[in-house]
């Protein structure tokens, strides 16, 4: 993989940050329905983590140099 521009590297993290902030806000601003919206939004980063941690490594041992 060639070096990506920083804009590309930060695209997903920024999107996730927005999802989290909206999730935190919705539960604060409303009850009932908005709580559910908040849970769903906040579940996104957690499910994403579960996905990345469980997915098999595509090319084992690659990129050992840090």
């Amino acid at each position, binding site marked *: 993989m060639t070096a990506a521009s920083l804009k590309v590297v930060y695209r997903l993290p920024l999107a996730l940050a927005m999802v989290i902030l909206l999730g935190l806000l919705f539960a604060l601003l409303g009850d009932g329905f908005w709580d559910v919206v908040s849970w769903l939004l906040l579940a996104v980063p957690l499910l994403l983590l579960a996905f990345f941690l469980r997915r098999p490594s595509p090319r084992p041992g690659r*990129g050992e140099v840090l």
Partner: protein
Amino acid sequence: MAQLSAKTVRNWYRLHKWTSLICTALLLMACITGLPLVFQDELDALLEPHVAPAKVEAGATTASLDPMIAQAQARFPALHPFSIGFDDDEPRIFVNMSPSDDPKKGEIRQMIFDAHTGKLLEVPKDGFDLTSFLLQLHSEIFLGLPGELTMGVMALTFVLSLVSGALVYGPFMRRLEFGTYRRNGAKRTRWFDLHNLLGIVTLAWALVVGATGVMNALSTPLFGLWRAQTLPKILAPYHGKPVPTHFRSVDESVKQVSAALPEMEVTAVVFPNSVFSSPRHYLVWAKGKTPVTSRLETPTLVDVENGAVTMSGGLPWYLRILELSRPLHFGDYGGLPLKIIWGLFDTALIVVLVSGLYLWLSKRKSPIERELNHLVERELLQQAGTV
């Protein structure tokens, strides 16, 4: 985005390393004690079952407060009434008795009454309380105000470490895909990936909890500031008058405040107090009824002698921010699912801390730093060559 110089990245990396090292130990403690504290209500219900209030129909009238206070005074003649609290979840009223205006931990004695029938429910025993113990450790490491301020500085350092961590994330991830986790890689590689992945995904949550942690740690000085700003003006007309000894009815005072603030409900009454409140007033706290306004409490002072409502109005902006910081720090504002989410984010943060510590301990002069040093040298040489 402009090209970053290796020197800039190295500075961010150093900032990340040092801020993290400063706060890791206490932060780890805060994360571990914070995990059960997220479920404080559930734990309390489980560990310390309390006498349930009587079941009543909706709209039942509230019992009178004055007899409760008289009963508490008779039970604890050596103490004086300190405050009254209205339970959020159940129709219960807490009457707190104290030996002084500035009670130490464990000196307050409580009596709990049924809010509808007015009957005494129980007098909690003065025993070990796990969640209060954890909260004291979490918020002040058993050191009182100095401990609170220390935790505040830690939280601030944590925020700096998050920001600098996010800044170094970009340059380090340019050759790696988002979400890279080389589970079959070397141990260090695995921990490095775990640190980056968990850190960047939970970043916004951690920033919010860190920043609200700073605010919560400042609550004592902020309330002190507010008191110092408002109280002298309110007490000025009383100058030279003796301190009141006879207090008027609490019920009447609460009724007055309720009438003045029809959109709100009373949550607590603080008795005249020269440390936390006014020595001449009942301090009546009331909150709104919508999700947001229920987090914003409004204080009203009622003269204990003539019942004049001396001050009514909102709090200054810094206390409003403090009030909103509480739910956003505790995660107790969106039901049990939100608490579970809070717990999972907190667990992820613990892994970020431990992996960061591992990365630092495993190789003091880590390859990352050596690499950066090379890059900086090369950059300097290049600059020298072009001049």
